[in-house]
């Protein structure tokens, strides 16, 4: 069976808002002070507060897993609950898992390096090594929930979440799966945060308790890093409604480019024959850094001749390479559309990568 237009039928998130099933009701969030590693003065980021995974998914065994694997397990479980998927009644060889991540299981990769440095290269830790592999989170989701369909992990700076959504849709459209659990996530560690500091890309809001400048505003001076994982269940609307599951959005089209100059063309191709007037929301990836926001504003202004509503959820989620799905969920949670309309998920990075996906909102 092939599927032309897969729908989002379940949502699970582990974000600075905590672990949540379904939409994110809260809208306000401030960065938290970093206490997990030594810092040179106050340092802030949009961090996920520690929680007990078994409080969310009873019986879940997460000891010695990377935080990204833990969050993906929790988010996937919540999304499948939200989609009312009864795995006992499903053909699990037809359920795929697709993960998008920028830097993968960085936490345990660092710990493995530490074990090499401390114990010597000949006595490094055998538990840490496989858990640091980039595909570990998606593999654990398959193992824990018994999902035997294709299991993919993709990575692309800035548009890793968008890439996962597009590949998940391809699996459904080509009949390689009936259901896909689509994940995207990244964690923050000291090595990542200090790399951002060395690169000089952080906002002053990382260093003190001043408010985070809103993306696209004149006060933008850099970004505040974020972390988290998000999961959506994608399948046919018919399949979902037969179970009584909700249709959050339906994937229409998507295009990606690796050339910054081709960003507007990618958006136009994505919009296709749709009238610009039908697009009532652009879900932007603007993060408060001048170069990034100017790039994205340029794309929006070149494509849209009339005013269009733009939301920039990174103002409360922070910057991460895999924010695409979390931003989509935030926009679905917070937009107030009343009529059927189109949302454009736009991801861009200053290295030139742009991805654009349209979703029909019911």
């Amino acid at each position, binding site marked *: 069976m092939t599927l032309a237009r897969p729908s989002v039928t379940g949502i699970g998130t582990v974000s600075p808002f905590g672990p949540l099933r379904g939409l994110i009701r809260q809208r306000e969030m401030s960065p938290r002070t970093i206490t997990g590693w030594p810092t040179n003065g106050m340092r802030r980021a949009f961090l996920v507060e520690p929680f007990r995974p078994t409080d969310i998914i009873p019986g879940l065994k997460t000891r010695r897993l990377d935080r990204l694997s833990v969050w993906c397990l929790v988010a996937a479980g919540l999304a499948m609950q939200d989609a009312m998927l009864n795995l006992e009644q499903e053909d699990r060889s037809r359920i795929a898992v697709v993960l998008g991540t920028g830097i993968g299981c960085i936490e345990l990769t660092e710990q493995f390096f530490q074990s090499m440095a401390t114990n010597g*290269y000949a006595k490094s830790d055998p538990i840490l090594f496989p858990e640091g*592999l980039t595909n570990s989170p998606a593999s654990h989701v398959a193992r824990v929930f018994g999902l035997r369909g294709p299991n*993919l992990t993709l990575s692309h700076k800035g548009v890793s979440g968008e890439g996962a959504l597009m590949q998940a849709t391809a699996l459904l459209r080509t009949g390689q799966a009936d259901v896909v659990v689509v994940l995207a996530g990244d964690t923050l560690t000291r090595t990542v945060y200090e790399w951002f500091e060395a690169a000089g890309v952080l906002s002053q809001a990382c260093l003190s308790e001043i408010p985070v400048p809103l993306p696209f505003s004149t006060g933008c001076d850099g970004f505040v890093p974020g972390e988290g994982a998000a999961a959506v269940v994608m399948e046919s609307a018919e399949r979902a409604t037969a179970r009584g599951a909700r249709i959050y959005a339906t994937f229409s089209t998507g295009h990606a480019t690796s050339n910054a100059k081709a960003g507007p063309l990618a958006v136009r191709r994505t919009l296709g024959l749709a009238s610009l007037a039908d697009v009532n929301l652009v879900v932007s990836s603007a993060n408060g850094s001048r170069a990034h926001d100017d790039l994205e504003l340029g794309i929006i202004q070149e494509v849209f001749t009339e005013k269009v509503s733009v939301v920039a959820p990174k103002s409360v989620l922070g910057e991460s390479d895999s924010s695409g799905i979390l931003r989509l969920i935030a926009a679905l949670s917070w937009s107030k559309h009343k009529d059927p309309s189109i949302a454009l998920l736009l991801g861009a990075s200053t290295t030139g990568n742009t991805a654009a996906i349209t979703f029909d909102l019911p």
Partner: protein
Amino acid sequence: MGENSVAITGIGVMSPFGPGFTSLSSGLLECRSCLRPLTIFDSGLEVSPTVAEIRDLPALEEKSGFRLSRTDRLAVLAALEAARSADKSADFHESGALIATTVAGLTGINPAIVANPAHFYHEGGFAQVTAYPAYHPADAVGAWLELNGPCWGVSVACASGAISIALAASMVLSGEVPMMLAGGSDALAAYTVSGFNSLQALDPEPCRPFDKNRKGLNMGEGAAVLVLETIEHAKARNVPILALLRGWAMTNDAFHPTAPDEQGRGLAQCITSAMAMARVSSDDVGYVNSHGTGTPLNDVAEVKAYEAAFRGRRRPIPVSSTKSYFGHTLGAAGSLEAAVTIAGMRASTLFPTLRLTDPIESASVDWLTGTPRQQPLPLAMSVSAGFGGSNAALIFELPDGVL
């Protein structure tokens, strides 16, 4: 030719045999083993491990602001060769790249980073870390070949290289892009040598896949990149079609973080699904280039998978592991072995497993040992598997008139 067939019009390889697809083909035909003690860096192990390394990496034009890891270099060199026959038309520049990796830029990172990252960056490590992410080899290929289409990293452990080819085929068939460069690249790194050593998965001697006395794997390094496009697109460009990708499938064992399903169920399902997609029977498949790592668990599970998937076949299925020539190249393995499979088909040759003297007993498998077997090979399969339980199977076919 099946309804899902995709044309392969370019192949580029960086292997321990030397640069180029031709070096790979000739090395295999000569049954040359590249497995030797590691020399390109200090592994830190008591005894230098047996590996397949690439010595004398060809020079590559630099691009300002772009730091290349060894993995990136292998990927770009392979991609440049693969694209050599492609006219650099507007169509080509609208193409994308899916490049698989597991190691990526870990080759250039020192464990000292963890103790004091800021100091590490200040002392010259800053640029090295830009090449760390799994998307960097794809970015590098896109930059060197001036591709405007999607350039994404794929990281599914040791099945990555085959999976990138499968995903690219879907993208080409959907019309999303005119052409895709797809493959994988991984360089030898102290990190992965230490990791596989910690798992006690390394054979100190040259490996013996599928042998009853096998002791583990040898690591290798390399890259292979294929150019994929629709048959119609290739014909319109009037370029030779080297082979057709006729079918593929991907599954997951959902069994264990590192061990395969003991009965090979996930892999068997993968092989069966690929044959169904290609609309071929098990009798049509003339050869399987196996995953065949040489580890005790993998090889037994793989044999079980062949016994299940090829049950009912009139003759045992010919199988070999070419990791016995150039080791396990991790994220590159699936694409390198796709290139090996095509090389064998084009040379009408079934390459044997080296050092296989006492094979695992199986009535369903025809073990290829000794010297290369000459026979027409119109249709063959390459099989990959990896940590986390992922499996991939690719079925290749020679286009009409090649045999």
